[in-house]
């Protein structure tokens, strides 16, 4: 049963990824513009040179052949070449990966901790002032653009108090404000999802049964409620990773950090489509893999999914 569920989930993830990269291919085919010309535009190449390059790049091949090459290249980890810099897109992404990954990990830590705390607190004290306070903080996190909270944070902690650097990167101190700002935004949706999961479990018959048996409420909460609520919460938290990737792009811009965000924004402004496609396809790959991992982890944590629904 477990093997079947895992196998099916893997096949599903592979299928969605294939569809996604195919969409990316089709979208680029539909865009007007000649890649060979774009690649050579800066060097003032003659039309013969451009035609030669077209043949070299396989742009004269039938569409299906181009598509097959594209898929094969992707499987080998080759994302194509930048039109602007004539460099492999994969290498350009790898160079910018570590600052973005550092921000993503730090922001996830802040977001998950704060989100879990707010969500559980709100659910346990449902319809009291504590619930109102926690859900208000959550909806504020959800609604405040990081490019505004980031500016407020710079104003307060860098310009007024002078505690932390406003921009750039270097040591860990540069990471604190961006991670807090992005983490706060992330915590909003996590808190709401965790609250909903905990509230739902609290209405389950087995919780009533546990209370009827006279168990102390802290035992009911920790052993029965939270254990069964956090498994589904995990999957919805994983869904927030997509938000995190987009948020990282904006946050990097606010704090003038190096990273994938800067790479992507410059590529869009210069219409360097292979780089844009590379960043987007990588984002989809990571997003799908993280959700796959979360689903498998949930199946492992929750026996009902493991045995019944699979």
């Amino acid at each position, binding site marked *: 049963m477990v093997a079947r569920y895992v196998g099916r989930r893997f096949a599903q993830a592979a*299928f*969605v*990824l294939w*569809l*996604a990269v*195919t*969409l*990316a291919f089709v*979208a*680029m085919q539909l*865009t007007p513009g000649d890649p060979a010309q774009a690649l050579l535009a800066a060097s003032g190449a003659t039309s013969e040179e451009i035609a030669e390059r077209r043949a070299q790049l396989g742009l004269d091949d039938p569409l299906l052949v181009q598509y097959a090459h594209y898929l094969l290249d992707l499987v080998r980890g080759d994302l194509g070449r930048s039109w602007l810099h004539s460099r492999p897109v994969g290498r350009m992404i790898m160079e910018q990966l570590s600052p973005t990954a550092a921000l993503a990990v730090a922001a996830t830590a802040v977001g998950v901790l704060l989100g879990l705390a707010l969500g559980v607190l709100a659910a*346990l*004290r*449902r*319809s*009291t002032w504590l619930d109102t306070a926690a859900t208000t903080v959550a*909806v*504020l996190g*959800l*609604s*405040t*653009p990081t*490019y*505004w909270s980031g*500016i*407020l944070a*710079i*104003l307060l902690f860098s*310009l007024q108090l002078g505690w932390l650097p406003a921009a750039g990167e270097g040591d860990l101190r540069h990471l604190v404000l961006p991670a807090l700002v992005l983490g706060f935004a992330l915590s909003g949706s996590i808190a709401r999802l965790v609250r909903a999961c905990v*509230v739902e479990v*609290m*209405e389950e018959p087995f*919780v009533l049964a546990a*209370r009827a048996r006279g168990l102390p*409420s802290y035992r009911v*909460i920790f052993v029965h409620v939270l254990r069964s609520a956090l498994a589904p919460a995990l999957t919805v938290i994983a869904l927030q*990773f*997509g*938000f*995190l*990737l*987009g*948020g990282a*792009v*904006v946050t990097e*811009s*606010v704090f003038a950090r190096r990273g994938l965000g800067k790479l*992507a*924004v410059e590529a*869009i*402004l210069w*219409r360097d*489509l292979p780089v*844009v*496609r590379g960043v*987007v396809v990588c*984002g*989809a790959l990571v*997003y*799908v893999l993280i959700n796959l991992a979360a689903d498998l982890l949930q199946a492992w944590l929750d026996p009902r999914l493991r045995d019944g629904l699979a």
Partner: protein
Amino acid sequence: MIRWAAPPRRSLVRQPAALAALGWLALAGLGAAMALSLAPAGPLVADTARALLPPGLGRPLGTDLFGRDVLARLLWGGRWTLGMGLVALAVTVGLGLPTGLVAGTFGGWIDPVLMRLVDALLAFPGLLLAMAVVALLGPGMGSVAVAVGLAAAPAYARVARSAALEVRAQPYVEAARAVGCSEWRILVRHVLPNAAAPLVAFAATQLGWVLLNGAALNFLGLGARPGTPEWGATLAEGRGYLRDAPWVSVFPGLALTLTVLAANLVGDGLQEALRPW
């Protein structure tokens, strides 16, 4: 005290937060609509003698680097930002609603085909998908509105489909089918009106999303031209002299945050008021 039981649902008029949110949306919309009479000089009048003045008499929110009035730019910017949000929402609902309703009502082979397409789009993180669409269409305000609307559409299609599935299981749909109604008639006359409540609530939430992310693309410089009073773009412009004139960035950001917050609160309020139990 641990609260174990669910509170009763409240109608929208009994939810102060949702009412205040509606009030803010009305105020922001009115300000944008009446920008011409409230700030007749327009958002572009520069006066370098009045550059970077703090809020005070005759300039309630201060002036920017070129001496332009921040409040006037805020009112005119509402036209850009709110207009962008409405166009994007129209794209979201226009694409997502028919996709979801057709998939959920008709079932058969068309349901998995449409839903796999939706899954493939959902595989891209939302803002990255919107950025990719801007890259394909070329930077600009119109591209941004279409892009964020498109990026929000798959989630809307999902919600529309599950709402349609719920209605399709009702006995009155079976009855309609039994008396010989066509599938399209069932969709338009039975499924759409009965699935409308959650779809209206989710549309408010999606409005918040497209505003937040559309303004983000403008902030990144992928949409509005420099100088446009759009809130995200103005916010980015004010970053250059944050130390001397924080009000140039702070007020458009506040307006945007309040508007996104209001859209989310209205969405939450509608969801509570319209939930069936």
